[in-house]
């Protein structure tokens, strides 16, 4: 096989690391190495499974690759991004970029100063139905956006998941709703007011947020870790001055099968001794593959990213505004995202 023009190394062998490793499979030979800290059996097994060179230190990994793909819990994004950038490596980083606008800006401008590219993996933009809706709006057929409805309700993360720790994940607002907050901003522009209400029942939580966009649109963004296990429902509705488009995960998939009845599960199969690690299901037109191919080619050919570092910072600001509104019970103004790397971000 011809050597890939740019090689990618992965940090993070959890759910998102696995999802990315699979998705890199659509660019054969590109993903070559993974960080395997000494004694981390899960990461070592992961390296073996995907045929990746295990690297015992970040420095060793940086020495092997041109792009570092960071799929770790959010608090480590900033130090890993800066270390990779200082080693002259481009960065692909899972969302959210960070848990504060200041940290996200430091990632953005740190990469800029080091002369490397930063792509934050807001995968929703690469889901075919969300792209299609964005294209409908861009075509002018819907007119100017006026009311957006975006919903995302799944089951709570597994017991013991780091996502439950809001100090690490930012909770529903920054981890889950971030997708739709970014998408709402991509479609309807900057936001000058955010109001959110939340309810909790045990480990289940739902958040309902209203955004007011400066361009005249309003968005309802609803998200929660609240559904029964295995249930994941999303929907979008974009109404413009001239027309509207609607999609929901209740829509029929292209293939449905009714029978023959599957054979009853034997007790031995029910709990497999070596149960596979959790991973997101493969999708038609896999958005993760589309996202990583996009980022890879943009770096390779010096093309712009569909999601810019500034977009990723703005999404963090919106997620934080949701949290601030939940804390204060008031409608709040999101933190300004400055485009000057030398100035600190300020509150308006």
């Amino acid at each position: 096989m011809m050597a890939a023009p740019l090689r990618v190394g992965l940090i993070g062998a959890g759910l998102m690391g696995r999802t990315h490793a699979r998705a890199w499979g659509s660019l054969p030979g590109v993903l070559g190495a993974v960080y395997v800290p000494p004694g981390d059996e899960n990461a070592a097994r992961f390296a073996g499974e995907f045929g990746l060179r295990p690297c015992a230190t970040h420095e060793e990994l940086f020495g092997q690759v041109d792009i570092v793909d960071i799929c770790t819990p959010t608090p480590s994004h900033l130090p890993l991004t800066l270390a990779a950038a200082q080693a002259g490596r481009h960065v692909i980083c899972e969302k959210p970029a960070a848990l504060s606008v200041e940290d996200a800006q430091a990632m953005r401008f740190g990469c800029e100063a080091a002369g490397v590219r930063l792509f934050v993996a807001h995968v929703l933009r690469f889901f075919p139905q969300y792209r299609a809706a964005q294209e409908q709006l861009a075509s002018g057929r819907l007119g100017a956006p006026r009311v957006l409805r975006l919903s995302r309700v799944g089951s709570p993360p597994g017991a013991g998941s780091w996502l439950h720790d809001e100090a690490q994940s930012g909770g529903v607002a920054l981890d889950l709703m971030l997708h739709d907050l970014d998408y709402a901003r991509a479609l309807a522009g900057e936001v000058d007011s955010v109001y959110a209400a939340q309810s909790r029942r045990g480990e289940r939580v739902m958040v309902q947020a209203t955004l007011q966009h400066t361009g005249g649109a309003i968005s309802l963004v609803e998200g929660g870790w609240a559904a029964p296990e295995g249930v994941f429902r999303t929907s979008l509705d974009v109404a413009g001055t001239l027309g509207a488009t609607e999609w929901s995960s209740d829509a029929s998939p292209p293939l449905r099968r009714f029978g023959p009845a599957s054979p009853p599960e034997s007790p031995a199969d029910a709990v497999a001794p070596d149960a596979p690690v959790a991973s997101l299901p493969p999708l038609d037109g896999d958005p993760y593959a589309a996202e990583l191919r996009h980022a890879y080619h943009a770096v390779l050919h010096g093309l712009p990213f569909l999601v810019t570092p500034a977009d990723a910072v703005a999404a963090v600001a919106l997620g934080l505004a949701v949290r601030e509104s939940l804390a204060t019970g008031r409608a709040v103004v999101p933190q300004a995202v400055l485009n000057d790397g030398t100035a600190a971000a300020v509150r308006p």
Partner: protein
Amino acid sequence: MTVRLALLGVAHVHAEAYATLLRARAESGDVQLIGFCEADPALARDFALVSGLSCLPLPELLAAGPDGVIVCSETSGHLELVRAAAAAGAHVLCEKPIAIHEQDALSMRQACEAAGVQFVTAFPARFSASVQALGQAIGTGELGAALSYSGVNHSVAPDRHHPWFSRPELSGGGAGMDHIVHLADLLRYFGERPTEVYACLRPVPEWVRPESAATDAAGLVTLRLASGATATIDCSWSRPPGYPRWGQLRLDLVASRGVVSLDVFAQHLQVSGAGHTWEGYGPDLNASMLEDFLHVCREGQPGRADWRDGYEALRVVRAAYASAASRQPVPVTGS
């Protein structure tokens, strides 16, 4: 007994449907539709032609002694018609919202109580079997505790055929006045009580008649509920004129033990020809509501949605407008 009914005002979208349903119902012999009154001569003429009913001056219509009246005028005219009907001893079925301001609604109650007649609010969604099944599932507690409700009552702007809907002096407002009440009432029907309301209500000139450019046409409302749950209502006139139906009435519930999706008008045929429409089938909610009102007229007992239900829904609407004006949430106190 034969129940004798009259339509007071026919400006509302639903007046024609009520007339059609009641004329069909009259064939069974126990319902008689006396006629209607309407202040707008052109509308009166058109409605008389379409419905085959006679238009009479209000005093004459009430002098005929109807057992009940259906108030379908512009919202601004409800109070005067309700007072006149109550004074004539007729039970009242009143279109929603029952008034523009709480004070008018309170005056209606006073008039009806003084006359000893029932006041029924037109909330047909309460008659949906799916709504009742959801209410039962909530009531038994089988779903666990509610976390959030997400309601959609968006539609094509009704002012193309009924211009008064977007004229605040007649309607009190736009989409917020028109479409918050149904979902606010369903939440009440399910036992929820709002404690705080936040709303964005914005004009969208492209969705309404040119003269109503400043009327709110886009609306997103958030309620905090005493149960600890939250709810949203999308009341927008956000469907384009080419939408296959007038709009939607849906409510998603996320509860601690399950997720329920209610689509009140899910039962429809997709019909394509020169255009594309969704044609509903199954029980007609307006017919069920009218049947309930006939029962009210016969027995003098309250209907399924009474004055209090109409009033509480109106209070949510008023709070939404107050919130939209201040751009902050406003409390709703118990009444």
